[in-house]
């Protein structure tokens, strides 16, 4: 057993932070928080604090990245040095390059890039504070920022993770569960069609467990989607 690893993850049906197995951490989303960006979003998801900003479509530099049939979507996932317990060394590393790519692929499935050939759409995702599940939080915030920038897209894209602790499948892991748990399954869906835009798995699950985890995450995504809609409605004065 490692230092900090709890003996039990689920006590009396409650998880270590007091949640039920199918309960999400509290989510707060606010759209349009930045003056200079074309679109922006601030999201708090339990202990995660994420700021997403979207610019574009705009002139692309360097020019060789331009595509003659569509816009180039560029995502930058970055963790602040103060976002984790041990200082995160600033600058790009393997993990943030990978997450930028994963998030870009997810967003590319909904944004209408073919409408803006030869341009760039830049999405910056800044993790101010991390408590596991930052890629899901990043995707959720980024899609609100893109909608806030007025860029045409198929639909908002919510994201949520599920995982396995103490041999039980639960939704939305927080840091202790993520570090010492048995599996982690981040999922992003396109809510209307139910298409899966992101699916990763870290750890081992049986087929039955995987299906249960996927269903839980999809259910979580739908809750997150409602919050996204609320945030945009609030920003633009809809009811």
């Amino acid at each position, binding site marked *: 057993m490692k230092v900090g690893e709890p003996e039990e993850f689920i006590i009396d049906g409650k998880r270590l932070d007091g949640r039920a197995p199918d309960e999400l951490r509290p989510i707060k989303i606010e759209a349009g928080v930045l003056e200079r960006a074309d*679109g922006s979003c601030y999201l708090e998801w339990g202990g995660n604090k994420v700021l997403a900003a979207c610019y*574009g479509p705009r*002139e692309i530099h360097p020019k060789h990245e331009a595509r003659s049939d569509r816009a180039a979507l560029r995502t930058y996932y970055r963790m602040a040095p103060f976002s984790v317990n041990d200082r995160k060394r600033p600058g790009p590393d393997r993990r943030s390059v990978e997450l930028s790519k994963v998030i870009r692929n997810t967003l590319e499935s*909904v944004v209408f890039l073919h409408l803006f050939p030869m341009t760039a759409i830049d999405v910056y995702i800044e993790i101010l504070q991390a408590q596991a599940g930052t890629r899901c939080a990043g995707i959720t915030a980024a899609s609100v920022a893109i*909608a806030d920038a*007025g860029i045409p*897209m198929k639909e908002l894209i919510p994201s949520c993770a599920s995982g396995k602790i103490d041999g039980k499948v639960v939704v939305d892991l927080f840091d202790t569960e993520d570090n010492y748990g048995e599996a982690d399954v981040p999922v992003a869906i396109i809510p*209307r069609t139910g298409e899966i835009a992101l699916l990763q798995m870290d750890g081992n699950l049986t087929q039955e467990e995987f299906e249960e985890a996927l269903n839980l995450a999809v259910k979580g995504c739908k809750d997150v989607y409602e919050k996204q809609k609320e945030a945009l*409605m609030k920003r*633009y004065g809809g009811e």
Partner: protein
Amino acid sequence: MKRRLVIPGEEVAEGSIILGHGVYRDGEKIYSSILGLLDLNENGVRVIPMTGKYLPKVGDYVIGEIIGNPMPTAWEANIHSPYDALLNASDYYSEIEPFSILLSKIMPPGKMIYALIREITPTKRIYITLRAIGTHPLKGGRIINISPAKVPRVIGKKRSMINMIRKLTGCRVLVGQNGLVWIKGELKAENLVEKVIMTIESEAHTSGLTDRIEEMIEREIK
């Protein structure tokens, strides 16, 4: 008439109907692709954007800024859209000998112009012209920047808003479809017009705006 606010992916109509801006079809149903106000009637369906960049259209009047060092026979202009615009020397002067004169002597970088979009090529090259009616380089005055989505409110129905502002303040006001506004007049009047246009931008969604703005100007002038 109150229009409903829709978000990307929201179902707005179904069946055979003419699709306008900001909507897409998936099977039988039609969904919004942008955040904006739904405009659904017997002529078709569209979503009026609430935010977003200016997308150039042929025939639009825009305000632009000459940028960079001019090429031998063309200027480049920033028109606050995803694409920079090109202004051929022949779209300003009828006869110009290539290399005979430095274009930067005529219009240096930073010069503002009120121009018409003449052509957009399939490769998204935007050609603007200064030889159309009403277009000219701008001298003096000031430029303010508003959201392109709010431009129709600043102009008003049948240009009512902008004509009223011009008449009451005596300022020259030009509104580019790209969200740039040029104001020239007395210093005090310029300040007033700037304030008025900012008010229009922030209250664009309310009704009876022209009357309230008229009251506001008359109150300020006294």
